[in-house]
């Protein structure tokens, strides 16, 4: 996701003025995403939180303690969404891996059928090379699916707490 361009930056101007412009743009960017959105939306939101965090961390000596606190909040969001993204990546990896195993097993089963056969003998199931692998992969799928859901709930609670505390408005006020 490309970052929004920040207008009005002046290299010869004070760090604090320029930092304020960047923080305001990065906040707008973060709040442009739906926290209940799909995997791609939450991934983009994580990147937006990371950009906000880095500018606040870097410029907090000039912007003051509110920026440092804002950086910690942005880091929390980034971490939660990062862990959620790791679950999505792991689930995709397991799906691909399981698909590959199923393909190999199908090939192996087909090789057992005599030329011109219209039926596969039941005994073929005993010889499928990956038949012992699926149970563990299904267990992992269940684990990462539930973990993702719980992380999303935590993220939503965090997001709602920030809204109640007027995180965005207060940060903008201090700039």
């Amino acid at each position, binding site marked *: 996701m490309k*970052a929004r361009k920040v207008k009005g*930056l*002046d*290299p*010869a*101007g*004070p*760090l604090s*003025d*320029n930092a304020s412009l*960047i923080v305001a743009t990065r906040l707008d960017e973060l709040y442009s995403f739906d926290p209940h959105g799909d995997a791609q939306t939450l991934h983009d939101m994580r990147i937006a939180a*990371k*950009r906000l965090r*880095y*500018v606040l*961390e*870097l*410029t907090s*000596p*000039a912007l003051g303690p509110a920026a440092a606190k804002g950086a910690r909040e942005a880091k929390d969001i980034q971490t939660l969404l990062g862990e959620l993204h*790791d679950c999505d*990546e*792991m689930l995709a*990896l*397991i799906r691909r*891996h399981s698909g590959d*195993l199923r393909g190999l097993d199908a090939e192996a089963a087909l090789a057992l059928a005599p030329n011109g056969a219209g039926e596969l003998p039941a005994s073929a199931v005993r010889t499928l090379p*990956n038949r*012992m*692998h*699926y*149970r*563990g*992969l*299904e*267990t*992992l799928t269940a*684990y990462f699916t539930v973990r993702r859901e719980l992380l999303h709930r935590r993220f939503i609670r965090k997001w709602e707490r920030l809204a109640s505390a007027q995180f965005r408005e207060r940060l903008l006020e201090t700039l």
Partner: protein
Amino acid sequence: MARARKIPGLEGEITFSEAAARTVEIRAQEIFSFADGVLDTSNPERVHDMRVATRRLRAALEIFAPCFPKSEHKELLREVKKLADALGERRDPDVQIDALLTLKAELGQGERAGVNGLVAEIRARQARGNELVEAAIEHVGELGLEQRLIALAQGAVPS
């Protein structure tokens, strides 16, 4: 994870360009201080530290972009991104293997074969990632990336 070095003098009425110069110089040095031992797969912390340092530098280069000559900034940012991508190709498998081995320890014998197969696939990706990191570190050395970043940083202050 290694903490970011403090950038002295960012308080007060410093200009955006002066802040850019100080930050990019320190963040560039930081990356290369983690290069030793980064290819050791038994110690995932080195590659993690170098990746985090690369992210911090990349963030600084993006934040302070208007302070630098456009074409040199664009080229060096692209090189930093390429290095970060290579480090990610090694780091992501490290994290995934660690998570899967933790879960495997909780599973019964009947479920472990599937986890082992998946871990083996990720280990192959980790090895390829390590080759990419090795090539990327060699490439940035040939490019003189650290020196060019420091020169870029010093060029940010208007004469």
